[in-house]
């Protein structure tokens, strides 16, 4: 029932012979974080670039807050903020100068631009770096100045293209906190990521995209239910015991067991941590020498495996899977 902040129907974009985006539909409710999850080359960035008016779709249409991204591109530009590795700030200028530049372009007076820049630098924890050239910034600071630059006018719709790729965990958490505050305040965020954990942490709904197509869509819970909530990874002390362990695992978890490349490892998806908890005593009863056991979230690879029947690839040279 909520209004859609972003909607796309059948977006297509070709580059030479490759179909980078091949009919993407999206419906992003206002005031939520929407995750677009997929490996490199899946078409995430191309989709965002079309939604942010940087690329003209070859087919299909999209609207941001009701404005068509092609016919009313300039209105859309006035309503959005964009952060991505390709939409960056000027490394030669200081953080302060970059923000003043953008504020001036939006029409702030000299004085208003200066105070807005100071306000943003403070809000994004960049006070001390204000006068330094951006090229001297650390990765986390760099991402924060990029975010600040997208928020000069406090846009109601934000596109964050892989906002945490390449960041250390601490800086990543900082970016996550910022996204949470944004959405708490009523903004809509479309976030692309390669990490299921990130989508899970932040997004209310997630679209999984592969080879330019949305292959699954839903809440994080729905998505993970289709994969199994978690995976149990087991290592036995003696390779000879692996068949026994596999048998026990298959029985207790009622799941298919994957044998690892290492002769002592095996893993299986589980629906709940409780099922996994009963596994260990049973294994010990059977005399299996358990060297290591861990319970983890399914990785993006596992999600992909479950959804497409093949692992996520880093590139898309293969033909479309029907």
């Amino acid at each position, binding site marked *: 029932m909520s209004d859609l902040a972003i909607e796309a129907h059948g977006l297509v974009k070709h580059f030479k012979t490759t179909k980078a985006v091949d009919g993407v539909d999206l419906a992003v409710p206002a005031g939520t974080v929407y995750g677009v999850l997929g490996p490199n080359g899946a078409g995430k960035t191309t989709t965002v670039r079309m939604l942010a*008016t940087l690329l003209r779709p070859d087919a299909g249409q999209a609207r941001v807050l009701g404005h068509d991204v092609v016919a009313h591109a300039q209105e859309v530009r006035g309503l959005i903020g964009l952060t991505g590795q390709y939409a960056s700030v000027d490394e030669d200028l200081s953080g302060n100068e970059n923000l003043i530049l953008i504020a001036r*372009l939006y029409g702030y007076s000299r004085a208003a631009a200066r105070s807005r820049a100071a306000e943003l630098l*403070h809000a994004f924890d960049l006070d001390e770096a204000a006068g330094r050239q951006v090229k001297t910034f650390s990765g986390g600071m760099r991402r924060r100045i990029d975010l600040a630059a997208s928020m000069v006018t406090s846009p109601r719709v934000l596109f964050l293209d892989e906002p945490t790729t390449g960041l250390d965990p601490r800086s990543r958490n900082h970016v996550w906190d*910022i996204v949470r505050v944004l959405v708490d305040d009523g903004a809509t965020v479309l976030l692309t990521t390669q990490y299921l954990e990130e989508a899970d942490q932040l997004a209310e709904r997630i679209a999984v995209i592969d080879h330019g197509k949305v292959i699954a869509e839903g809440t994080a819970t729905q998505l993970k239910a289709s994969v199994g909530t978690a995976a149990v990874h087991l290592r036995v002390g003696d390779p000879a015991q692996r068949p026994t362990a596999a048998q026990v695992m298959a029985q207790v978890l009622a799941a298919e067991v994957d044998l690892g490349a290492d002769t002592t490892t095996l893993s299986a998806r589980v629906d709940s941590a409780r099922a996994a908890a009963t596994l260990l005593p049973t294994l010990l009863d059977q005399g299996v020498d358990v060297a290591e056991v861990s319970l983890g979230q399914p990785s993006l690879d596992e999600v992909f495996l479950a959804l497409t029947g093949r692992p996520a690839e880093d590139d898309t040279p293969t033909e479309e899977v029907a």
Partner: protein
Amino acid sequence: MSAPTTAATEQNPLRAAIRPREQPRRPGPVANALTFGWRALLKIKHVPEQLFDVTLTPIIFTLMFTYLFGGAIAGDVSTYLQFLLPGILVQTVLLITVYTGFTMNTDITKGVFDRFRSLPVWRPAPIVGALLGDSVRYTIASAITLGLGFAIGFRADGGLVGVVLAVLLLLVFAFAISWIFTALGLVMRSPNAVMGTSMIVLMPLTFASNIFADPATMPGWLRAWVEVNPVSHLVTAVRGLMGGTATFGDVAWVLIAAAVITAVAAPITMRLYRTRS
């Protein structure tokens, strides 16, 4: 220093900073272009090395060509300087125009351009602003060339007015051909490719002209090119203005050529800018 998580727990500055606010009125095209021009000046402030070319090229060219060829081409150095200096001024400024495309391509590779393209600004503003910023560099290079020229004996019979008009005419022409390099800057894959290609374009335009020698001494085929080469017309007009002998036709030819180049190259650049993927 606060731990990263406290930014979220206290939240006040961030929350306040991103709260929806009244939007200022959109500035006009001129204001947008001037803001981008300001950016170009800031870059000169932060990276003054980029002025090395602008200051050293005119010094090296003027001294080298004057003393290297002066005696051989014109019989003596001071006669040749009188002929050469306006031409060297033109060549110096035109060679610097390639940086326009180079800078633009650097902006694209670094991702700054896409940020600008995602803003609701007058579309040609980033390019026009960059060109405005470049005219500062052209002016610096002109001042250095002229200063050095006067120091080693150049005399301008056209007086100060003639010299100023000559530089202005040169800036107009440089602004026009910069659009060609911005187009290259948008098409090519790397800043260095832009540089290489631009030099290939500029070499025949500047060397195969009347900058260094009187075309009357050249073989017919070369003379035919030199006489249609717009740079030759520009040099003739600049020489004329500085020497006080310019005709209306000389100057008008250059202005029309600049208008035609802009009329063709600027829309191509803008189209490339809009549709760039």
